[in-house]
């Protein structure tokens, strides 16, 4: 079986201009959204509290909003998470509250009235919980919490349940945002340096521009659709940057080889033939990696969703930019045979 039966060189560069205009427009749109609308940053970056509450029946989001609104003054978000029963609540950091207190109050507000699907005994447990969280920290001894924990354990899986609480102080958040920016910069510089050593500078510039274009597009998508941008998403973006840059490396490798073997061909012909020679490999390898990320997107559950989404988008944009953007930029930068095939040139000089 062979998928790609390519009879002749595909003139990729002929269409490059059209694609580059599209790229430029989407790139500017992404930058515009990033600049004016910004990212929907997770609490890891902004500070605040996130809680995941599992109900026993599809949750009534409006009811939850009004219940929280009674105690919470700031802007909070309520959305379903994974299934209709699970709800994710984001609370901004509030002055005068220590970690976790906000989540305790919200959870007790949510369970003040029995919700659908709960066992009848749950009401008593929730009432005990509400009483317990009124205690100051110093009085929350093991003796005080043991009966409550026992009761919760007995009714596990039958009551509304607080599955996860994350609290991030504002100082940690701003640091993480800074560290994230530094990480992005270091990765870009590291790769640029490697490419500069490995290749000629026009190619390394072209590869870096092309792949930054991918990064901006992926992050831009997160800004446009208001998907939550969390720390794992940033990790995914960086990993995919490292991964897709090698696509450009492979194409440029071929370009170098073809400059050597196809002495009479023009620059455009050489680039076209190099891309044509590698396209089948490009599609198969990225197809394999995409298979992985798409299964993660489909079966990985809500916790991995945005992470897998960033990987998937990153790989797609990576293929596109390696084929249509990187080589085109190298062409615009005026890459010549003499830039790459230095040994051959020296040989000629000797012959003359």
């Amino acid at each position, binding site marked *: 079986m*062979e998928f790609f039966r390519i009879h002749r060189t595909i003139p990729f560069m002929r269409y490059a201009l059209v694609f580059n205009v599209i790229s430029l427009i989407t790139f500017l749109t992404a930058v515009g959204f990033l600049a004016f609308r910004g990212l929907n940053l997770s609490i890891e970056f902004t500070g605040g509290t996130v809680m995941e509450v599992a109900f026993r029946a599809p949750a009534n989001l409006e009811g939850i909003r009004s219940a929280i609104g009674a105690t919470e003054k700031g802007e909070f978000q309520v959305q379903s998470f994974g299934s209709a029963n699970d709800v994710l609540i984001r609370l901004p950091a509030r002055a005068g509250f220590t970690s976790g207190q906000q989540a305790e109050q919200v959870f007790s507000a949510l369970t003040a009235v029995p919700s659908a699907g709960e066992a009848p005994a749950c009401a008593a447990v929730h009432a005990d919980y509400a009483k317990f969280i009124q205690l100051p920290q110093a009085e929350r001894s093991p003796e005080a919490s043991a009966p409550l924990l026992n009761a919760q354990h007995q009714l596990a899986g039958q009551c509304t349940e607080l599955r996860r609480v994350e609290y991030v102080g504002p100082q940690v958040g701003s640091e993480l945002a800074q560290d994230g920016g530094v990480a992005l910069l270091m990765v870009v510089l590291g790769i640029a340096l490697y490419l500069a050593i490995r290749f000629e500078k026009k190619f390394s510039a072209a590869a870096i521009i092309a792949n930054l274009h991918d990064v901006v597009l992926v992050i831009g998508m997160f800004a446009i659709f208001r998907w939550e941008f969390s720390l794992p998403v940033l990790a995914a973006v*960086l990993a995919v940057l490292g991964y897709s840059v*090698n696509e450009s490396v*492979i194409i440029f490798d071929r370009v170098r080889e073809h400059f050597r073997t196809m002495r009479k061909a023009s620059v455009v012909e050489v680039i076209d033939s190099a891309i044509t020679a590698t396209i*089948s490999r490009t599609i198969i390898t990225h197809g394999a990696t995409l298979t992985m990320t798409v299964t*993660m997107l489909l079966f990985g559950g809500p916790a991995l969703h945005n992470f897998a989404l960033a990987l998937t988008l990153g790989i797609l944009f990576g293929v596109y930019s390696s084929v249509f953007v990187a080589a085109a930029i190298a062409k615009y930068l005026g890459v010549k045979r003499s830039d790459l095939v230095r040994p051959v040139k020296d040989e000629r000089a000797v012959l003359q």
Partner: protein
Amino acid sequence: MNRYALWKYLVIVAALVFGVLYTVPNFYGEAPAVQIASIKATVHADTSLLSQVELSLQRAGIAQLGTTLDTIGQNPTVRVRFADTDTQSRARDLLDRELNPDRTDPAYIIAPNLISSTPGWLQRIHALPMYLGLDLRGGVHFLMQVDLDEAINKRLQTIESDLRTLLRDKDVRHAGIRRDGERLEIRFRDSASRTQAHGVIHDAMSDLVLQDGGTEADPLLIAALTPAARTAVQDNALKQNITTLKNRINELGVAEPVIQQQGADRVVVELPGVQDTARAKNIIGRTATLEARLVDVSADGLAAVNGTVPPPFGSERFTIGRGTPVVLKKDVIFSGQQLQGAQATFDERQQAAVAVELNESAGRIMRQVTRENLKKPMAVVLFERGRGEVLTVATIQSEFGSRFQITGLGNAQTANDLALLLRAGALAAPMQIIEERLIGPSLGATNIESGFRSTEFGFAAISVFMILYYVVFGAVSVLALAINLMLLVALLSLLQATLTLPGIAAIAFTLGMAIDANVLINERIREELRKGTAPQQAIAQGYERAFATILDSNVTTLIAGVFLFMLGSGPVRGFAVVHVLGILTSIFSAVFISRGVVNLLYGSRRRLQSVPIGQIWRPSAAAGGAARG
């Protein structure tokens, strides 16, 4: 040409044996267990406790599957495995009754736990299951910020009072000491006394840098901590806080707590399996107090030691560790807040001792008390949860002030323990929780399940494609991929690196990338065949030519992975670890092992007619020139 030297096959076999050995523990699952650890500072779990536990269980007729004494951790722990949770809970009740006869003052915490059922011989070569992060097993995570400025502040307060004493003792006259930020300004009436003070302070306090200041008429001496001393104060404060936290967390009975320094001034606390954040916070934030008191050596006091008569008025009865009772006076000589430091050291006769340093005011009281109570015993009590425990009883040998030694401790280990306990009684600097995470156990289980399910599905899909598309070479690639997965899991198990949900995602992503290398190789071989190269030659060329490209593509990914590891924390670091290790194992398995398998299959066939790598399509002669490339 497609033959491997014997050593190369031996390397492959060694890698496979390593992979199997270290991957296997992950499949053994976990057995219910009971773990017993001491919650008293002076009691340790040891072999005698182990045999006591075994005897108790035997007498009650409760069958156990094995006992271990783990002395490697922060707190020695005895663990007993059982066949089912029912036996586990019966054993737990029994042990709780027998080991803690005094219900009001338990000495051991007996907690249910799950431990790996990996056989002992595997555990001995450190083949253990992967260490799961909190997002996979559930539990609580705290990140605490230690206020190190406060530690410096405390230190400067002590130095200030020490300076006053020093100058008074040496008869150097000064016109007042003032704090200005992190500097101490000592005012003098004339520069002669400043010069004198300079010499005195320089000789006595090596922690300070001194600088002259002020005017001729109003001379000043500015003292500040040397950078080294400042760092030392901060380091000690952080270490003391970590020690204190460890001691407190031990009594929670958590299976594998993680208490680690993060950055210069932060401490991470991870308590797997704990669901009760409120209680955890209560224990972490608790303040323990340390008090020094005189032993009541009056006739009434001595009479009350065995507990038959009540202690006299103004005295209380305590026990030293679990055993010997002692009656102490209620008056406090000094408390933990006044303790500046405690270090294990040696006295003039080279015996183990603990050097204690008190602040100025406690030193003055100490001088008076010791003068009046020469040759009488004094005790140090640690109060926690409102109950006191005597750490040590020592006889006052001479009159002393803020610096003294506790001697007669026997060996260096005891001295170390006591110094630690004295220091650990209280937190050196205040701490604040700046990050908190609670992950329910059901969520952890769901995360593991969905993470592994997506990896399995992705692996299956890729395998089907590879075998259909590249036939035998596809099967070899899938085999290499499976070995890659096994080696990666084995490495993660060996290093006990924390596996998080993003880490599982990284396994999936790495597998997707690892197949890249095999696709590259297979495509190159096809290309060679298309050119009309002989089969054996094509295989060799394919592997050799693809290698440079594989290396290239992995270097860029490695750069991204390394920076992620350096700058990430928590789950992201989990991702980066798997990512980087995965790249390394994938180069090894995709190139070295797959070549080995191919060589084994085809290397010895001298007249290989065709390569089973799927159908090779050749462009028609007319178009051939352009597509050849």
